[in-house]
């Protein structure tokens, strides 16, 4: 056993003596946790979820709550170490990681997979979820450098930015929903219905049946759809040869001969009916992209390498593996660490990496919320220009920072406190006093010019204090510190708070009578007197109030409208005191392991399509430890995620 019997008894003693008052004694079981039920360590080991929960509240210093006697520092550290040891044991006894669950492609992945499979030189259908439109090809991952001027458009909010060359007559199925605290890649959200199945069948046929689906737009036209009159072989032989190759790509692995024959037979029937060759091939292609072997992402327990190849390519490219990746899977090279690293390095340089940047950062930061942010036009008229909202410019800033940190392989601490940013003239203006309008053009609405600018003022920079996040975590009339705190807890530290109980009303937008002279913090504390609310709010409130100097559209302020000074002081994780926002950032930086762990957790959830289990926590610990050696650079974190046991867990092992 990892823990000596003595240590084990110590753990129980500490828990029972310090925590059981509220969690077990006299029938009190706050948070439905009864620690007196735990009479030996095997019990705790058999319940890894509870074990994880206890580790988390100790680790984030959530327990004991502020009004209870604290654990002595040494005791706390020892307890956490012992519990983590226990978790390690529990997990190694379980052995297997949870396999990645089966899920259908989401709308974004389907789009990309179809585009890559046919080598399309246009989009299939418009995707407003790809927020940044790249004008002039600024995104060059192989160069390792982002330019000083990037020209972008906002698909969801910019005029005409959705108008792109695409296949006429193809209608997408509706956008897939992002899971709560999660991503649109999550298996439990990607379900199938008869209507959606019909859409897939129809979609497949409308794609290959589009008037634009021809030699000009389709990269594989010649090798797949066109019958070469000089080829004197039997047509069936040609069809089989083409389908073997095509199916391998579409189904992302080797394809049994009976499957190939089935599709060959389908073409045969069409040709016998008198359908012309290209048309027959279009029909079979439409059928292939309606097959579950195309539509579903799953681990085939018979071919580990191919499963890993798909996981990798849908993670980094949002699409199918290319031939080189399939070959590495087939030869077994991908299952070895060097082979995996080699492919990873290659994939990071491929322009298809843009698809990772089109999904992960916006969903991680929950930037879709900026699309529906509508500050009160009477209170914040400056937020509106022409027929647009400043959010069109705002949303670009954190996304461009993310792309730069990735392409230039900077430390991820830049997300907390960056020494540069990308700004348009309009965005500079929207920052008011803290902005630097210089002579850059303001009020652009289509193609927007974003310039890389150094940042000396540490109040700005990073993904937290930018105008987009500050605006979208506010209500129409005032900031919402609790929303901001919840955002920070969930996004930055990956520890989202539980939703509040049902019978507590939220605070009104405007002060009620007699409360006009109070600061927001005072109003909130009046409002929240119940002891069962405090536990959570002690955690999220200091985070949210730390940002009170930014108003509901992200502009700096020292005072509230009623003249009271903004009160933002606090203590992070009951450890790091801060009196201004720069000190707050320093405090977050002191906790950078937590941030890195949180980010790595988000990446794992995004790539695996499932929630994390206790076994994954061990993998996260390793990712943090290993990437620390390389200064927490973005590519090293991504690399460690991919090399982690969670990511590489194989279907064949899970089955055993």
């Amino acid at each position, binding site marked *: 056993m990892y823990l000596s019997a003595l240590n084990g008894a110590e753990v129980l003693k500490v828990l029972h003596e310090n925590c059981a008052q509220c969690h077990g004694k006299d029938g009190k079981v706050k948070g439905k946790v009864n620690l007196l039920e735990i009479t030996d360590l095997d019990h705790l080991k058999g319940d890894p979820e509870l074990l994880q929960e206890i580790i988390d509240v100790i680790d984030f210093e959530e327990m004991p709550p502020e009004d209870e006697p604290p654990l002595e520092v040494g005791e706390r550290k020892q307890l956490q170490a012992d519990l983590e040891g226990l978790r390690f044991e529990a997990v190694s006894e379980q052995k297997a990681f949870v396999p990645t669950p089966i899920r259908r492609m989401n709308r974004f992945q389907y789009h990309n997979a179809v585009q890559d499979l046919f080598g399309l030189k246009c989009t299939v259908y418009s995707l407003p*979820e790809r927020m940044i439109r790249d004008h002039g090809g600024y995104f060059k991952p192989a160069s390792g450098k982002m330019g000083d001027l990037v020209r972008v458009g906002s698909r969801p909010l910019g005029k005409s930015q959705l108008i792109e060359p695409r296949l006429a007559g193809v209608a997408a199925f509706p*956008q897939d929903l992002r899971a709560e605290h999660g991503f649109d890649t999550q298996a439990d959200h990607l*379900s*199938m219905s008869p209507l*959606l199945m019909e859409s897939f069948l129809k979609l497949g046929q409308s794609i290959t049946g589009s008037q634009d689906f021809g030699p000009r737009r389709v990269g594989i036209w010649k090798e797949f759809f066109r019958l070469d009159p000089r080829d004197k072989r039997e047509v069936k032989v040609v069809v089989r040869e083409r389908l073997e190759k095509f199916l391998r790509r579409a189904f992302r692995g080797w394809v049994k001969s009976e499957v190939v024959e*089935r599709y060959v037979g389908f073409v045969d029937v069409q040709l016998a009916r008198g359908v012309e060759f290209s048309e027959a091939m279009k029909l079979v292609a439409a*059928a292939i992209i309606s097959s*579950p072997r195309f539509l579903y992402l799953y681990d085939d327990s018979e071919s580990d390498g191919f499963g890993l190849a798909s996981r990798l390519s849908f993670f980094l490219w949002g699409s199918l593996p290319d031939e080189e990746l399939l070959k590495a899977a087939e030869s077994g090279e991908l299952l070895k660490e060097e082979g995996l690293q080699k492919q990873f390095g290659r994939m990071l340089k491929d322009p298809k990496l843009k698809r990772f940047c089109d999904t992960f950062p916006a969903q991680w930061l929950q930037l879709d919320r900026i699309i529906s942010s509508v500050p009160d036009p009477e209170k914040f008229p400056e937020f509106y220009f022409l027929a647009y909202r400043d959010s069109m410019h705002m949303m670009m800033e954190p996304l461009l920072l993310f792309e730069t940190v990735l392409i230039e392989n900077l430390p991820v601490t830049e997300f907390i406190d960056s020494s540069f940013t990308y700004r348009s003239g309009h965005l500079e203006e929207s920052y008011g006093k803290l902005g630097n309008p210089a002579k850059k053009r303001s009020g652009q609405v289509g193609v927007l010019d974003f310039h890389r600018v150094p940042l000396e003022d540490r109040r700005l920079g990073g993904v937290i204090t930018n105008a987009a996040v500050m605006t979208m975590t506010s209500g129409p009339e005032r900031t919402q510190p609790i929303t901001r705190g919840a955002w920070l807890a969930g996004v930055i530290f990956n520890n989202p708070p539980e939703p509040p109980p049902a019978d507590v009303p939220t*605070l009104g937008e405007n002060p009620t009578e007699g409360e006009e002279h109070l600061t927001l913090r005072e109003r909130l504390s009046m409002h929240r007197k119940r002891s069962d609310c405090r536990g959570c709010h002690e955690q999220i409130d200091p985070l949210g109030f730390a940002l009170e100097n930014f108003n509901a559209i992200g502009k700096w302020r020292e005072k509230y409208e009623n003249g009271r000074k903004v009160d933002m002081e606090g203590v992070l994780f009951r450890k790091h005191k801060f009196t201004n926002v720069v000190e707050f950032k320093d405090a977050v930086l002191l906790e950078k392991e937590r941030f890195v762990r949180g980010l790595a957790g988000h990446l794992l959830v995004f790539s695996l399509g499932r929630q994390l289990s206790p076994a994954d926590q061990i993998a996260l610990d390793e990712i943090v430890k290993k990437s620390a050696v390389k200064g927490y650079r973005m590519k090293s974190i991504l690399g460690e995620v991919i090399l982690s046991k969670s990511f590489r867990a194989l279907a064949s092992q899970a*089955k055993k």
Partner: protein
Amino acid sequence: MTTRRGFLRGLGGAALALPWMESYGAKTLTSGVAKRMAHFYVPIGVVRRGFFPGEADATIPKGNLGSLRRSLDKQDPNFGVRNLDQLTPTMMPLSGLKNKINLITGMDRTFQQGTDVHAQCASCYLSSAPPYTIKGTAWPLDRTLDHLVADVAGRETPFPTLEFSCNSHKDNKESIYFDNISWYGTGHLAPSVRDPRKMYRRLFSTKEIDRYRDVTDLVLEDARSMKKDLGYADGQKFAEYFDSIRSIETQMDRLESMKGELAKVSFDEPAEAYLPRGEYIRLMGDLMVVALQSGLTNVATFMVGPERWDTPYLFDGLFDKPMSHHGMSHNQTKMIEQLMKVDRFHMEQYAYLLEKMEGVVEADGSTLLDNTLFTYGSGLGDGSTHQYNDLPIIMAGGGNQVKTGQHINMPEGTPLANLWLTQARMMGVKMKRFADSTGEIDAVKV
């Protein structure tokens, strides 16, 4: 509006020739004429002054009282049944149909913290599970009433249920929770169709659907072989694919066997053109009625608009410029007149559909409305207070199974699920309890 000719004129003339002949499908072995159920969902609540009897002088909510979630004025907490004689302004369009409806007030849903109030009021309208009973989700959302009913009443129709939405917004502003009242189960959306052309093709394009037959055979083979490669949990999830393909195949078979009858339906394919909002809603409604009438389905849900969705659209004939229903709902002190116009406009569409159903004569001489439980309702009692209590509900139809012409006020705290339980049982579903129900609404029963 009541004559057939009137309908056609109302729809702008030649676009539609409607099949107002006898209803052909929808026969069940036991009763001869099938029972149907439909739900007409109105987003963002109603102006209480305009809708509720006795609230003509109710307090006008100021701005967005998003956090209030209760009534500003005290409603009658006691049970009572009155004759539905004088109709409130919003209900006036139903004046010719008073003996076909019941106004039921005083019913509530329970809000579960942690999700948006508009999203939950729509997505959980037809399930209203008790809060925090559904694991792994923030929504009190379970298999919705329409599907539970269709499990019994939809066994012989090509489509067990149909989902209509009159959301004409082009932007993807809100999540699916704002735009759907129909769910196969927790996290398993039954997506709706917004485009009348798409719905028309789904219902009548047997030619198009035939093309899938070769494909479904082919991919089903793939699915069978693939299932062998999957573990237990994945196999469970993958059942959705089989179910979907099988539904489509059943659908094709049943449509095939109905081909002759469907050929008699003279409903032109809708043109691809902008339709003023009223015409658009009525066209979608016509499609729903024809689907119920012809036995394509026995169960339908109809959202007249999505929840929240701030983007304005043009309510042709009501206002000069595009207006946001949600925006107006938070500005009742200034916009109450306009908002009541919207409420009344939605009621006119409901009345149009009631009249239409009343005009369809079935095989036994009864009307389609007699055989349909067709309920108007919203998940909010008011768009400003965002209250989940005292919801506006009108239940129409049901023929001699239902006692009509009443205003029924339910005692304070009566769950909306009580009405859903009543309807499910009327539709032949044997269930002890539905969601958080505490009993039935006996006053509607004969």
